[in-house]
């Protein structure tokens, strides 16, 4: 197990800069995910840590050991690929034993360690099968076992759940997370699925266009997004422009098309300056229109999400906002409704 330090990492392919000046520390035993849309540089960052790409500039250290120039086979990492990359010409046992075999671990010692790791990933009885004879979920477990059996200093996962169906994906999220906690292994996890990254990680790193936009806990990223991109990527944020009318420590009251409400903020803002507030769909309420500050609008679309209903509401000025309300009180499409913002649940973008 070791700490991971990435300093000033950049990677260019020809003229295309895939990763730009990435700095990241992952503590021993921490689970950190790299989150972002495809092409944001998260996979390239992971591949640099694995040694599958050579950084253009920057340094990567495992603990105190500088591994920047080391080939992947010298790094002692366990990596799981999106395609699982199981060797099709080897059985499950041979696949898992591959890393032991190249390290000169053979015979009863190898058998014991393979059996141990097979037990850990709950995959007994499939040793003699070939990868093509396994289901997607089983292949996933083989890939995990193969990565873990060498007792790596770090676990690197590149969208490992992307090819699984929804139910299995859910199950594997918790499985991988609890496995990681049990083994206490430092883990870097690449995904484009925000809920996956929020459920699984200690900290989430959000990347766009090769740069890190924010590093923080799931709550941080969700409630206090650092940039407009983060806010819109994480969920259906309503971005509401407005003007500051009162600023105090950590809060600001702003005037917007949705009325006047208070927002949290991390920076000092001047009264009168133009700002953008992030208002989450669940911070908005449909009301009966009794309060004077309520806004009127019209339901233009309504999506049933199970426990919630997602309404798209057109306001008088044409702005479309989205609101999540608990299922129950139903407002059909086309109905006139009133909307109220919950004060203090909004956040000012810097």
């Amino acid at each position, binding site marked *: 197990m070791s700490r991971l330090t990435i300093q000033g990492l950049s990677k260019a392919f020809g003229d295309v800069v895939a990763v730009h000046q990435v700095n990241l520390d992952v503590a021993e035993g921490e689970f950190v995910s790299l989150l972002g849309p495809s092409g944001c540089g998260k996979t390239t960052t992971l591949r640099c840590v*694995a*040694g*599958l790409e050579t950084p253009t500039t920057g340094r990567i250290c495992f603990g105190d050991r500088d591994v920047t120039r080391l*080939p*992947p*086979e010298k*790094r*002692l*990492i*366990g*990596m799981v*690929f999106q*395609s699982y*990359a*199981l*060797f*099709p*010409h*080897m059985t499950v046992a041979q696949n898992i034993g*591959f*890393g032991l075999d*190249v*390290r000169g671990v053979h015979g009863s010692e190898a058998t014991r360690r393979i059996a141990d790791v097979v037990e850990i990933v709950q995959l007994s009885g499939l040793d003699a099968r*070939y990868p093509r004879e396994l289901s997607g979920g089983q292949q996933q477990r083989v890939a995990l076992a*193969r*990565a873990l059996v*060498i007792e790596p200093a770090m676990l*690197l996962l590149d969208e490992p759940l992307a090819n699984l169906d929804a139910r299995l994906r859910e199950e594997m999220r918790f499985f991988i997370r609890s496995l990681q906690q049990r083994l206490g292994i430092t883990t870097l996890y690449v995904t484009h699925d925000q809920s996956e990254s929020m459920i699984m990680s200690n900290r989430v790193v959000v990347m766009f266009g090769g740069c890190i936009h924010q590093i923080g806990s799931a709550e941080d990223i969700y409630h206090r997004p650092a940039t407009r991109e983060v806010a819109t990527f994480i969920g259906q944020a309503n971005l509401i422009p407005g003007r500051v009318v009162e600023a105090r420590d950590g809060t600001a009251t702003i005037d917007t098309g949705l009325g006047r409400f208070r927002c949290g903020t991390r920076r000092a803002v001047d009264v009168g300056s133009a700002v953008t507030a992030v208002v989450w769909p669940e911070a908005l309420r449909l009301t009966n229109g009794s309060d004077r500050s309520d806004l009127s609008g019209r339901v233009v679309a309504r999506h049933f999400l199970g426990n919630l209903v997602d309404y798209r509401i057109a306001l008088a000025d044409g702005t479309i906002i989205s609101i999540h309300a608990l299922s129950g009180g139903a407002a059909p499409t086309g109905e006139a409704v009133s909307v109220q913002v919950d004060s203090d649940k909004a956040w000012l973008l810097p």
Partner: protein
Amino acid sequence: MRRWLLALPALLMVVVFVVIPYLNIVVMSFRTPSATAIHGPGFTIANYARALTDSLYLGLLADTLLYALATTSISLVLAFPVAFHLARTESRWRGLLYAGVLSPLLTGVVIRCFGWIILLANDGLVNQGLGLFGLGPYRFINGVGVTIALVHVFLPFMILPIMNAIQSVDPHLAEAARTLGASGRHTFFHVTLPLAVPGIQSGVVLVFVLSASAYIIPMLLGGGRVQTLPTVVVQQLMGGLLWPFGATLALILSLTALAIIGVFAALTRPSMQRVR
């Protein structure tokens, strides 16, 4: 039933142009020779007795197979890096490289042989070049020239199937092997190479059969010093008008090549099954 009908045109082609001519050759090989006609009256096994006991013909068979084996081995070694590069490269020159690989197939074999003769002749370009370093001149218009030309002409038949095989392998497999601690060399021999076996198998079979049955190349580049079974068969047919004996020699070559391919297929069978 209907699916079987779709195969009918191909089946018809095979029967008319492969099975019937082959049966004809088989019958011919049991005919008696004649000085005035294509064959004499009645049937005999004397042709086979002669071909299989005369050390001249057995030696020719061995030479032919040796040329085929040398050509196949050299092609395999030369083809693999090219196939690997072509399969994996994202270079914009890929199309050009691909055309380069196919180029030996773009002109007739006779033209290409004359090209090699010009290059390899005693006062040809190659010897002139070697002369600059005080070497030679060497005689290339012999078995050496034949092998060079065979390799040149049949190389695409080795490169293309291997390239296809490598293309169908997930590039992440080699990377996964590296992350698990395998060196580049270990990865090549335990992951990349075993997975390319289907392509290697087709390439080897194609090049072996093509070079064992080559006629024009040994004729032209051997400079009269190289005799293989195909050249002797043609001599029997055209020169001696000995159709029955020519047919016998042709069949012996075909059957031997078939047997060798059978053994090769049996040997590579376990690794093929693992890949499938």
